Each structure stands twice: as C-alpha cells, then as structure tokens.
C-alpha cells in the first residue's frame, strides 16, 4: 500500500499541496481527480521522489520510501519524455536496467510489451519516427517494463484514440487485479475513472476534498434525489408531501429532493393518485456531478 501522509509543498508563494493524505492499496486502481492546478502532478512527483515535499512523508508497505524502493515503482509523467533519437527497444531496455532489471529480462519484457500494447512500427526505429499515439504507448511500456509494484500515471489517457483507451484500460486492470500492483492515475475523463477505478481521490486547492469508493462518495455526498415521470398530473402534485422539493421539472418529469425522513413510497403513492406513473426511481449522480458538487 502506498501512503501519502500530510504532504505539504509550496512553490514561492503558491501553495501546491496543503496537507494531502491518501492511500493506494495493492491490487487497487485509484483515480486521482481534480481541476487543473489542484496539485495532482505535484503529489505524484513527490510520491516518485522527483520532487521533495516541504513536509510530510511517502510510505510504501509501511516504510518511508528510499531510492531502492522507488526503483520498483513505475511512472508515466504528464510531460511525456523519451530520447527522441534513441531506438525504441534499446530505450525500453535502458530504462528497465536503470530500475534494476537484468539486461536479458529487460529485452524479453520490452519486446513482449511492444506486442501487448500494440505498438506499430519497427522496435529498432528511432522513437521520433513513430506516430504520437505510438510514442505514448512506448511511454506506457517504459512505465511497465520492470513490472512495478506501484504504477503512478499522470494523465495516461490524454491523447489516446478509443482503441488506445481500451488497451490501456485492460493493461491497468491486469496490473492491479492480476499482478497485484497498486495503481494510481490522474485523469479528467471522469467516466473512465468511474468505470475503471476501485477508489477515487478528489483533490482541490492542494487538499483532499473527498476520497473513497465511488459508492462511498455517492453515499456521503449525494443528495437524496428521485426522478418521477407522471402523465396527466397537476403541476406541483408533490406539494402535498412535506419535505419534498423539486430540483427541476420538464414536461411531466420531475426530479425531487427528499428530506431524510421522507419515505419514497409515500411520494410514489401521491404520484399514482395524481396521474399515470411511467417511471419512478432514485437518481445516481455520476462522478462528474459529484466532482462539480465538491469543487463548486
């Protein structure tokens, strides 16, 4: 398990992290969500040792992280970077060896990964000769080639085509759920985060605004909303139910917020008495809606 404990970091007068703490358990995929400049990249850089925290600690399996431990982490920085003039395979082998993988093993895994990630092009071609999408896949291969115990990916999905998104999703799920790695990635594609992640960390202005599973976030954050579609009812038919208020209405469809003590069945009874009920059910907010609510 990766633990970020009370991380603080400032750049001049700008406070980038103001006491950030969260965990990424082994075998889990955690989505790291926040607006631009919220502190995601800074937190990730500190976790990888690329930046130093002013205060706080990064722990892996309960111990403070040192250089030897960091070599077992995999990283895909937001600002992608590879040697443009170095050959693809040679580059992957080099980066794997820097993290302590023996040469022969590094070579085998690099070739394997290039196939798995569906990198199109000659493995002995220079990186700069590949298309941007393929360079991105090579970048991902560089993060995976040493079979990391922890994978930290900064905006890994940006710039990928739909097929690339599927390939990357599968790779991350395999890394976490089959190989037992702890995976954390940042993304603005919230539906992807919702689909892939076991947990979410929502960061805002350098602080963790919410974290947990998506269901937990819903439970803690979401309002008690119900969507009712009734044909032939009077406007404001719900007024007779104390504690029910319309959030929005549209041509027979009403979204009602119910007070904690209001029984939804009572609302349904009133609706049926008012007209023909076509549909009735709770509204499950998407991660995007939760996100907007938290950062608003």
């Amino acid at each position, binding site marked *: 398990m990766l633990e970020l404990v009370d991380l603080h970091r400032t750049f001049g007068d700008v406070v980038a992290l103001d006491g950030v703490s969260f965990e990424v358990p082994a075998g889990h995929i955690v989505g790291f969500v926040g607006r631009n400049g919220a502190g995601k990249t800074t937190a990730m850089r500190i976790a990888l040792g690329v930046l130093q925290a002013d205060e706080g600690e990064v722990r892996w399996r309960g111990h403070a992280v*040192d250089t030897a431990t960091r070599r077992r982490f995999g990283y895909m920085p937001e*600002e992608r*970077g590879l*040697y443009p003039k170095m050959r693809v395979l040679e580059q992957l082998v*080099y*980066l794997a060896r*820097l993290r302590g993988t023996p040469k022969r093993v590094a070579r085998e895994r690099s070739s394997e990964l290039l196939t798995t990630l569906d990198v199109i092009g000659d493995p002995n071609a220079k990186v700069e000769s590949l298309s941007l999408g393929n360079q991105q896949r090579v970048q991902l291969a*560089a993060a995976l080639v040493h079979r990391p115990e922890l994978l930290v990916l900064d905006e890994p999905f940006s710039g990928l085509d739909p097929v690339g998104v599927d390939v990357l999703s599968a790779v991350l799920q395999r890394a976490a759920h089959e190989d037992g790695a702890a995976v954390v990635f940042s993304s603005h594609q919230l539906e992807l985060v919702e689909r892939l992640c076991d947990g979410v960390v929502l960061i805002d202005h350098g602080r963790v605004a919410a974290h947990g599973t998506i269901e937990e976030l819903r439970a803690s954050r979401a309002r008690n909303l119900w969507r009712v579609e009734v044909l032939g009812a009077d406007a404001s038919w719900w007024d007779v139910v104390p504690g029910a208020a319309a959030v929005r209405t549209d041509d027979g469809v009403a979204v009602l917020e119910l007070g904690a003590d209001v029984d939804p069945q009572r609302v349904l009874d009133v609706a049926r008495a008012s007209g023909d009920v076509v549909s009735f059910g709770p509204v499950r907010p998407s991660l995007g809606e939760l996100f907007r609510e938290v950062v608003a």
Partner: protein
Amino acid sequence: MSAADRGSWRLVAVRDFWVRLRERSFLISTLLNVTVISVLVLARASGGIGGPPSFDLGVVGDADVIAIASATAERAKDAHIEVRVHEYPTYGKSEAALRGGSVDAVLTAGRITGFETIDQTLLALVQTSAHAQAVNAVFDEHHVPPAERAAASNDEPLEAGVLEAPPPHRQDNAAIAFIGVLLLYGQLFGYGLWVATGVIEEKSSRIVEMLLSAIRPRQLLAGKIIGIGVLGLCQLLVIAGFAIGLGTLTHAIDVPGTAIGAAALDIGWFILGYAFYASLFAAAGSLVTRIEELQNVIVPINLTILVSFVISVGSLQDPNSPIAVAASILPVSAALAMPVRIVLGAATGWQIALSLTLLIGSAIALVPVGARLYEGAVLRTGSRVKLRDAWRAA
C-alpha cells in the same frame, strides 16, 4: 543510498558513451582533428627540418675548380650536410643540368651559378672552400709553415658560447606543444559542450523526469560526465597515437620519446581540465531548455577557455613570461597553459605541484557546486532558470 543505486551512473555513462560515439558529429570531429594534425605534421616534414640538408653541386673546369668542389663536400660533411659533386665536360651540359633541376648550383672557375637563387648554406660552403684554396695558394707561394697556416686559415677563431643553453630539441618541442594545446583546447571545449547539450537534450525531451524517478540527479550527472569524458579520452588517445605515428614515419618529429611524453601529459591534463569544466558546463546546460539558449549561458565558460588557449599559444614564444607562469598556475587556465610550459621545459617542480594542487582541489570543490545547480534547475522547464533560484531550489 543502496549498492544498486550507486552503480546506476555506470549505465548512464555507457549509454552516453555509445550514443555520442555513433553520432555524426563525433566522426566529423575525429576526421577534422586527424586532418589538421596531418596538415601540421606534413608541413613540418616537408619543411626540410626532418632530415639533414643535402645539395647537388655541378662542376666544370680544371683540377683547381674540381678541388674546390671536393673541399666543399669535405667541409660540408663536418657540418652534417651532404654535398654531392657532379663533374660535367662542358658548361653547356652543366647548365642543362641546372635548368633540369638535377643540380642546385654549378661551380666554374671564379664563379658559382644558381638557377634562380643559390641556397645560402651551399653558397657559404663553396665560398669558404674557394677562399681557403686562394689563401693556401698564397701560403704556398710564401712557403708558410703548416702550423702557422692552420692558425691563419682557421675560419672559426672565436669560441662561441651562451649564458643559458636552450633545452635540446626546442623546435621539436614547441611544435609538439602547439599540437598538444590545440588538441586540448578542442577536446575541453568540445566535450564540455557535449555535456551541456546532453543535459539540455534530456531536459527538452522531458525524459529527465522519467530518469529522476529511477535514479538520483547526482548519479545521472556523474554518469553523463564520465561517459562523455571517457569518449573524449579515447578520441584523444587515437588522435595522439595517429599524430605520433605520422610524425615518426615522416621524420617530422626526431624524438618520439618527447612526443609520447607530451601525449601522456596532454591526456593527464585533459582529465583534470575536463573534471574542472564539465560540471560547470552541465550546470550551465541545466539552466536552459533549448539548445538555442545555450550560447547565452556558456559565454563565461567559453571565454575562459578561449583566453586560456590564447595565452597558452603565446607562451610557446616565451614560456617564462609572467602571464604564462600565472596562467599555468591558476586553475581556470592551468589545464591548457601548464602542459605547454612542461613540454618546453620551462615549468619548475614547485610550479607544477602548485598548479596540480589548485586544479585538483578546485575541481573537487566545483563538482558539488555544479551538481547542486544541476539538481535545482534540471526539472524546471520553460524560461531560463536564474543561478540563485537553481541554487536555492536544490
């Protein structure tokens, strides 16, 4: 720091070594060096300094004229000069030989004729021989005894001497020192620049963030400096070997021992000078993100090396001038200026010891300074990083 981490600089060094070795600019710089040295060595070899001079003297006339020619050949031999005498039956034939270039001059009764000019050495030898023959004729006429003749005909009655004899092979040594300092200048500047551009390459391609998530900045910096430095050293060895080989083959260098010594000296001072400058070049490179901005930040280092080079070349003429002595001791210029003075035999033991101590000491002191600036600046892309900010950020 774990044992595994300590060794990661080697991987960086090996990569940098092979990547630069395969670069076209490495091939070009090697060829350029070899070409410049070939031109210098061959120019020196064809300058006639390589072997003893020799002349062909045509002669037409009676026994007296032939005797002058023979006496000239004898006299030349004493001075380690070869004069070959060719007798011709007629003046016409000797003139044809002169025009054809098979003789350097033709001696006839009372006259020596060249084609366009007559070599001063040959002319002096023939004139002296002719003069001696004339004087001997007078001595014969007056029956002068042999002992007095010898005294009177000695054309070097004065013993010549100097207060301070120059070191032997001074010409050779100056030539070797010049080639040496030229090579050192090229290597120190060229490889220092390569360190700086290597740093920028990693910064501008953003791979530095990937690298620094795996190894420490100092390991990355050390690997880069050592890898590029070893390549510079290998290139220097090849070029020095080529220069000595060519020089010996063409007799441009009489004393290969001195040249080998000078080459070893150059290599030693290259290592020291590179150690001194490389971390500065790396720090300079880490301040900017684009190659085009590099010129602005390395101007001070450039100028220092250039001025050191100019002083070093100047000290070939007067290796004991105050500026030459000072430059050979100050760490910023010692790597270029001191080897010149050592090859010329001008540096004293204490000067060499002081210069080495200062250079090694300051190189050791500069490495952490350069490394700290590098650490503080290498992750900051965008506009140029100020020295003070880089220092504080590390």
